[in-house]
């Protein structure tokens, strides 16, 4: 049998972690990426990476609590075994990254320093300055470069994955890709292909994501038969800096230090904000949430900013949506001391000093919780079976998905600093499974008949030529992309309404048809970025449709998916008896809703449309419980809910209560 090899698509944290671990196991790796690995999107992450650690442990933390926070934050929509395995591994992942030379910030004594992030009470987050993602990525990139100089890893940078190659049984035996410089289309034989291609923020036009985050590789695999899970769960961050090209993140700490969010009461008041008198300013968060003010949880802040601009028409500017985030009432020196790092980002990209001029911010699409459906093998204890080839495999045999492009770890909403973890964890964990997969096979892709690959290449070449030959003067791909972004941003971000989603879905179908009539402004065969972009644009539609259809069908509120028409009510009763009755009804409704909707959305592509199906979620380890943050009557509901859990647990064969024996108090998970 000829030597087997694995193709990894994507040089972000997930792809690099998988590549280095595979190389260590003695497997030859091809690593393909649109950009040099070192320039992958993972460099953008600033905040940090989570794990339970020696210090938090002594304050009562454990891997189990990290697991609990993660599934609670995700509104229980993720299968629990993969999450449990990930949080069990988290301390080990950080120790490994430490050994690889990541410049984590240190305590005075020389230990790794930690900060606190949203959705938890513990200081779990390790960080390297304000560029944690960059530092983690570089450490992995360096290891892969080491294997590259040993000849175990071969890099194909500036290549675009066009699709998997499947044999007559639907087994993946390699892929077809295109060289972005020479435009050559060729096949790559591989005994397994691992997709680590990140998120799909560009479907929304502009987001906090990088330019290659189009979701193209995922969409191409979806169109080849892999299913797509939980597409409608898209995380929107409340405060980003709107830019003509990108929406850049502005950290929540600006509000933590006293920043106030407001808009002029008159829409598009042309005056300099500093000349607008106090009584003509609308501090909408402070007015609507007197208790929490500007520090309402992120999902609420996001919704209110959105509502004020989109439905209230009170955006600061006419041409685009934004509100003021104002720090100018705080002493400038104090601001420099406490917020210097993030304020300089604003200054660098806006050319304005936020210590003296209010910042203009707006929520931005930030992360895709959804992704390719992936399998796992559960152990009796509820973790993952190490070395099982089932872990992370998609519906297409021998095609795997890891990192942000799988659907597995974050459910309805991702906690901050958990994504870098899931990327590195899934990359490391998938490797022994692949090793066993290769061992179990009797033939190698290298021995396959050439006709399989030639046929696949021919098909992609024909599609490519057809695009180049499109008549001139038709649709413009860049403008279609803008339209798609506007449509998606309007209908499927913060607040979702069925009438809008329905209209958006029809508009999306129409836009897809128009996109197929795009003319190219470059028909050459050398570094043709125009045709590469147009292909990525066409492949955005299957995912966009899955997001819209998934959101349309899901009549509930869960995690990042908020439909006001299906919101769980606050309690309104005046006396204790009324409240108690309402709380009972609330809990009934909560159970009934979970019965119906505590299910992953799983989409299958039928050539023109996604067919949506639902899959039960493995919640066998921690019983789903309500998130009650900011709800009137939360205490009563919680009491009733606890009593019911206790009653169930007392019954023989009743539900297992959470292992830690406690139910978290109300609190909104943040990202």
């Amino acid at each position, binding site marked *: 049998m000829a030597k087997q090899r694995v193709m990894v698509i994507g040089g972000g944290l997930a792809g690099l972690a998988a590549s280095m671990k595979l190389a260590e196991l003695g497997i030859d790796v091809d690593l393909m990426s649109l*950009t040099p690995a070192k*320039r992958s999107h993972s460099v953008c992450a600033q905040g940090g990476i989570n794990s339970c650690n020696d210090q938090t442990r002594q304050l009562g933390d454990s891997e189990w609590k990290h697991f609990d926070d993660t599934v609670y934050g995700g509104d229980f929509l993720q299968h629990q075994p993969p999450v449990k395995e990930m949080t069990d591994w988290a301390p080990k992942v950080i*120790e490994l990254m430490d050994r690889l030379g990541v410049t984590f910030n240190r305590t005075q004594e020389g230990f790794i320093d930690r900060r606190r992030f949203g959705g938890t009470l513990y200081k779990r987050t390790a960080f390297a300055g304000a560029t944690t993602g960059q530092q983690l990525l570089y450490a992995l990139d360096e290891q892969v470069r080491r294997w590259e100089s040993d000849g175990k890893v071969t890099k194909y940078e500036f290549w675009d994955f066009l699709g998997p190659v499947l044999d007559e049984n639907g087994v993946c035996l390699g892929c077809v890709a295109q060289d972005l410089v020479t435009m050559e289309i060729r096949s790559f034989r591989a005994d397994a292909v691992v997709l680590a291609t990140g998120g799909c923020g560009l479907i929304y036009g502009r987001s906090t994501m990088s330019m290659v985050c189009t979701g193209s590789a995922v969409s191409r695999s979806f169109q080849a038969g892999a299913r797509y899970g939980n597409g409608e769960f898209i995380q929107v961050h409340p405060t980003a800096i709107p830019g003509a090209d990108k929406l850049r993140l502005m950290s929540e700490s600006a509000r933590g230090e006293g920043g106030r969010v407001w808009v002029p009461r008159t829409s598009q008041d042309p005056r300099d904000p500093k000349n607008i008198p106090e009584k003509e300013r609308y501090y909408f968060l402070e007015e609507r949430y007197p208790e929490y003010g500007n520090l309402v949880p992120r999902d609420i802040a996001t919704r209110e900013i959105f509502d004020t601009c989109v439905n209230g028409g009170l955006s600061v500017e006419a041409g685009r949506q934004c509100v003021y985030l104002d720090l100018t009432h705080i002493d400038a020196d104090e601001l420099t001391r406490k917020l210097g790092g993030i304020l300089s980002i604003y200054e660098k990209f806006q050319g304005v000093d936020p210590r003296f001029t209010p910042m203009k911010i707006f929520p931005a699409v930030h992360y895709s919780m959804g992704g390719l459906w992936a399998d796992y093998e559960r152990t009796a204890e509820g973790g993952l079976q190490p070395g099982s080839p089932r872990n992370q495999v998609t519906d297409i045999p021998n095609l795997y998905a890891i990192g942000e492009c799988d659907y597995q770890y974050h459910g309805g909403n991702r906690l901050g600093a958990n994504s870098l973890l899931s990327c590195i964890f899934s990359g490391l964990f998938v490797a022994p499974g692949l090793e066993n997969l290769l061992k179990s096979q009797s033939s190698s892709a290298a021995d396959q008949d050439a006709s399989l690959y030639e046929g696949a290449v021919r098909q992609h070449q024909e599609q490519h030529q057809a695009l180049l030959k499109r008549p001139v003067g038709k649709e413009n791909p860049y403008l279609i992309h803008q339209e798609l972004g506007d449509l998606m941003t309007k209908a499927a971000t913060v607040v979702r309404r069925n009438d809008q989603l329905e209209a958006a879905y029809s508009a999306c179908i129409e836009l897809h048809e128009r996109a197929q009539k795009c003319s190219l402004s470059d028909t050459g065969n050398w570094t043709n970025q125009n045709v590469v972009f147009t292909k990525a644009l066409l492949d955005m539609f299957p995912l966009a449709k899955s997001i819209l259809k998934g959101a349309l069908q899901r009549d509930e509120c869960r995690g990042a998916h908020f439909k006001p028409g299906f919101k769980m009510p606050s309690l309104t009763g005046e006396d204790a008896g009324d409240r108690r009755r309402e709380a009972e009804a609330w809990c009934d409704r909560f159970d009934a809703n979970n019965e119906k909707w505590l299910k992953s959305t799983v989409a299958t592509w039928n050539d023109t449309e996604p067919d949506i199906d639902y899959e039960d979620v493995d919640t066998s380890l921690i019983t789903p419980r309500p998130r009650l943050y900011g709800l009137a009557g939360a205490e009563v509901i919680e009491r009733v809910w606890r009593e019911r859990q206790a009653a169930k647990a007392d019954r023989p064969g009743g539900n297992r209560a959470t292992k830690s024996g406690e139910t978290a108090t109300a609190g909104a998970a943040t990202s």
Partner: protein
Amino acid sequence: MAATSSNGHATPDAFEVRILRQAGPGQHSYWERHRVKYEHDMNVISVLQRIAANTKTVEGKSVAPVAWDCNCLEEVCGACTMAINGHVRQACSALVDHLLEDNPNEITLEPMTKFPALRDLCVDRGRLFRSLQRVKAWVPVDSYYDLGPGPKQSREEQEAAYPLSECMSCGCCMEACPQYMKVELTQNEGENDADFETRQQEAYDGAFLGAAAISQAVLFNANPTGKNIAGERLDALMGEGGIQVCGNAQNCVAVCPKEIPLTTSIACAGRSTTRHALKSWFDR
């Protein structure tokens, strides 16, 4: 209509962008002018995006869109380096308002000159990554199994290492360096890709490493585990195209967008190589 930019200056309705273009390697380069409608908060990337969406020159001629490189758009990935109004820097953090303040008439964009041209503003920076292999810019760990935490490190050590580890391989320091010469090979007729690649790497390996790779060698030689192969890195620094090529012109440090103390690194590497040379001589 004369609007004002976000920092209060009068802004034009539109402005001109002059781009040095080249269709492919070995082809002649030429200037082309485009007119772009002014918008608030534009950077050079959004200018290039507008040009891509409407590829007409000032003369009204339809042309092929301009090719350029970018990804993060936040000055952390290093992809979008080019010469803007004559200064090598990142296009994503080059704000139109500032550029027009310096020169209200036009913005010029040119590719870097020290790397082989691919097309328009895209160049091939493979040599820069090859330099990182030459100096073994990695920590030689035993394995990726769980072996406990890394060595304890002081705050001072972290604070010295962190700035060096921010190098995003953007190429600015090499573009500005008078000692860094372009190495450009063309594939011979009948030469296969693998052979060409080998020949190219050999050519790279004989040429100057550049300030960034020298600084990475210093970074890893200071790492508690990385220093276990410090000698091999110093050998690389002393070899052909090593630190002796540096003429100490200090251009590199002036253009580094991450403000990496490159000349300090070079001086440190110089001292270490001298010691290493003496030691190797005594150990003979």
